[in-house]
């Protein structure tokens, strides 16, 4: 039977909830938090860290820790938003063939929705764990 699941994809935090018996239940993440920071970190060892853990290592690995990427979704590299992010963000924002803003981490170029997708995958997994158990 289908379940109703709601996801809040925020600029700084994300949250996932399930409708259960007419009331909304927030799904806790692996670390036990009710919200998950919208942060993705790529370590030197090739690990991909998501959420609270990515945020904890942001200071040590600033150029490979991507946050607030929602702001770049659907923005052109030349747009005011894109340029402001390029100046203030510690990670690298690059142009693409169609002019959309992209993020380059460890030599690989990611589209903003791709990075948001990494966070969404984590939320999906949390919801699956919550419902399966």
């Amino acid at each position, binding site marked *: 039977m289908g379940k109703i699941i709601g996801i809040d994809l925020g600029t700084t935090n994300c949250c996932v909830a399930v409708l259960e018996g007419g009331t909304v239940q927030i799904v806790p993440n692996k670390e*036990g938090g009710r919200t998950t920071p919208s942060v993705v970190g790529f370590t030197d060892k090739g690990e991909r860290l998501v959420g609270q853990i990515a945020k904890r290592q*942001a200071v040590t690995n600033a150029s490979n820790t991507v946050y607030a990427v929602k702001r770049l979704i659907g923005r052109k590299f030349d747009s005011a938003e894109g340029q402001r992010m390029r100046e203030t963000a510690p990670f690298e924002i690059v142009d693409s063939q169609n002019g959309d803003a992209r993020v380059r981490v460890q030599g690989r170029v990611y589209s903003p929705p791709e990075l948001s997708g990494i966070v969404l995958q984590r939320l999906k997994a949390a919801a699956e764990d919550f419902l399966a158990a």
Partner: protein
Amino acid sequence: MAADKTEKSSNRIPIHFVDDEDAGASDESPLADDNDAPLEGAVDRAMSKSSPDFDPNPGLQAGEPAMGGPDFAELVACRAELKRLEAALAEARETAARRQADFENYRKRIERERGENHRQVVADVARKLLPVMDNLTRALDAERTLESEESKEFRHFLHGVELISKQLNEVLESLGIQPIAAIGQPFDPHVHEAVVTEPSDEYEPDTVIEEIARGYRIGDRLLRPSMVKVAAHKTQE
């Protein structure tokens, strides 16, 4: 007599009376038995057509005996009602089974959550106690540096407070709360929170060089990450 037979045979189909046995055996047994099969067929045909105003005596069966008017119509209606009710029952059973499965899942989760709840409550209380622990540790650290200048009485008092601090640590330990190793460890974002980085000659890059606030875990779960200072990469200097 014909009407009588119809009466009897139509009675025989849904309900079997004990005394029918005798009556049938005497004179009507073969007729009544013959009637059973075509009547079933007629009812089934009527059902398959599912016409509510089924003609109890259609041309096809005009020649067959014992096809009563209103009684037969009632029988067909009853059969239709029975089928409808059977379908409704099947649906209700399925709904009940589904609800039962839902409930079982709910019960399992509640049971698991109850087990976790205890740990959760302990963790909540401990988490609120941690800032007190932090301050007590800081206070003792600050006093220790001045220890030699203080009077003998004060040193005795300080030693007492240290024992109390140790006691508090032991209480937390008995609840399954363990401090997280930090200084000299490789930085691990799963248990450490980097607050600041600093170039260091003494330590390898990505090593914890100072603990700003102690982290704790309860069982296998993180209660609070350590706030730490991490050695920076040489290339970033």
